[in-house]
Structures are given as C-alpha cells and as structure tokens.
C-alpha cells in the first residue's frame, strides 16, 4: 500500500483555517486545482456518506465520499469512488492541529492507496503535489 504524507504550517488560528477547509463541497473556494464541486443527491455537505462530484482545472473528474468529519478533532476523511488516476482503496485525511506557540496551525494531509508497483512513485509525487498546492494556497490566503 502506497502512502503520501504532506504537512505544513499556516499562520492563522486553527479555527479560522478549519472554517475554510471543513466544507466538503468547498474545495474550489480554496484549492487552485479544483474548478467545480457539487454534492450528489442534494445531501448536506457534512452528512457522513455524502458524495462530492468535482471537476479539476485540467478537466479531470473525481468523485469522493465523506467517511469522517470532526469539528472537535478538526479532521476530514474521504475515499475516492471514481477518478482517472488509477488508484484503488484510496483513503485520505486532512487534519488540523493547533500550534499554541504563535497561534498557528499545523496542517497534515495523508493518503493511502493501492496501485501497480511501477506507478507508485509517480502517483505519490503527483498526489503529494496536489496536497502541497492546497497548503500553499492556504498559506497565501492567511498571509504566510
């Protein structure tokens, strides 16, 4: 099983960062790689099990299912139902933890998935790049 781990620090309190990223239908509002998102079946965005259907700026389409969301622990876990990436059993978690020293946020994004061994390195790099792209956008949005 392949694993991706990317982490960063955003210069804002974790409740402010969380308010921006907790919306399971809100990726296009903060992540530059995503163009459109909608929740299937008109379900609430924080209903566990809801499915988001997203289109990336490069035209790719990806459907993901919300597996877990906690406003208390500040994490969001989801799986991929459909994507052009060729991954199986893909589960990812975005997590925020407060940095008390300086009132900042420690942000982590992890993913685990299965794929053919010869594609693993490329997929780990690409997925890690998408995660870091999101963090770079958050750092810009919150000034560092």
């Amino acid at each position, binding site marked *: 099983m392949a694993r991706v*781990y*990317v*982490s*960063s*620090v955003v210069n804002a309190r974790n409740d402010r960062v969380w308010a921006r990223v907790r919306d399971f239908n809100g990726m296009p509002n903060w992540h530059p790689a995503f163009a459109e998102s909608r929740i299937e079946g008109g379900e609430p965005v924080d209903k566990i099990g809801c499915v988001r259907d997203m289109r990336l700026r490069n035209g790719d389409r990806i459907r993901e299912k919300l597996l877990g969301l906690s406003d208390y622990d500040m994490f969001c876990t989801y799986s991929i139902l459909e994507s052009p990436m060729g991954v199986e059993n893909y589960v990812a978690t975005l997590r925020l*933890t*407060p*940095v*008390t*020293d*300086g009132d*900042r946020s*420690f942000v*982590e994004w992890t993913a685990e998935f299965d794929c053919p061994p010869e594609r693993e390195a490329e997929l780990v790099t690409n997925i890690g790049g998408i995660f*870091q792209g999101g*963090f770079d956008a958050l750092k810009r949005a919150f000034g560092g």
Partner: protein
Amino acid sequence: MPRVVRSTIIDAPCGRVWEVLRDFNGHDRWHPAVATSAIERAQSADKIGCVRRFKLTDGSELREQLLGLSDLEQTFSYCLLDTPIPLFNYIAHVRLLPVTDGDRTFWHWESRFTTPAGEERRMTEMVGEQLYQGGFDAIRRHMRETA
C-alpha cells in the same frame, strides 16, 4: 483534572530534534530548569520503566518514570513519582511530527494532573509556561548552537 497542551514548530528536521528529546537522561543538557539528571539503578535511559532523578536549578529534586517510548512514532510518555510541588497523578506525552514543507518539526507536549483546589491556575501556568514553553525555547537555542 487540569490538562495542559502546548505545541510549537522547531526549524530543524524531525530526526535531529528526536535525537535530543528521546534521551530520557539528557534533559539537563538543554532544559534551563534542570541542573543534573541521573537514571536510578544504572538502567539504560531507553528502558521502559526507568526512573530519572532531576536536580532542578532551584535545588529541589524530582523523580520521573518513563512509561513509553517509540522511535517509530517519535513519542514518549512519563509520569511524576516525587515532586516538591503540588502536582499529583501527572502524566505527560511528547510527540514529534515532521513538517514536510520546509523540513521542520511539529512538537506537541501535553499532560494531565491533579492538584489541590485553588492551585489549578498556578500549576497549569507553571507547567505550560516554565516547563513546556521554556523547553521549546531551550531546544530552539540548542538546535542553533549544535547546528
């Protein structure tokens, strides 16, 4: 039961910070409150259950026992056995996580304890500021000096 949580970012790779922190007998080398440290009964500092005896810079002594240590998770836990201040049932956990963006370290330090009524605020402040924040600042200096 009071709970103290403090965390910081250290501008050094996780492996380097862990090398310093994992030495349960090495806190006298970097923490400003600790004058000397020794492990009782000549046990190894990474033997679970070993007890360290600190002499603090103010002359008082305390004993702490190592409850858990993981090089894989970069975590350790310990409890206070004897202390001159009113901290009881004190259990602390230290955890390091890599900040891949910039090759830095996220350091999380938390504890729970009991203390007599009326002492909660003073003890919470002392643990959070003098022990944990003081420790963060000291490691930051230590990392710069040993870079």
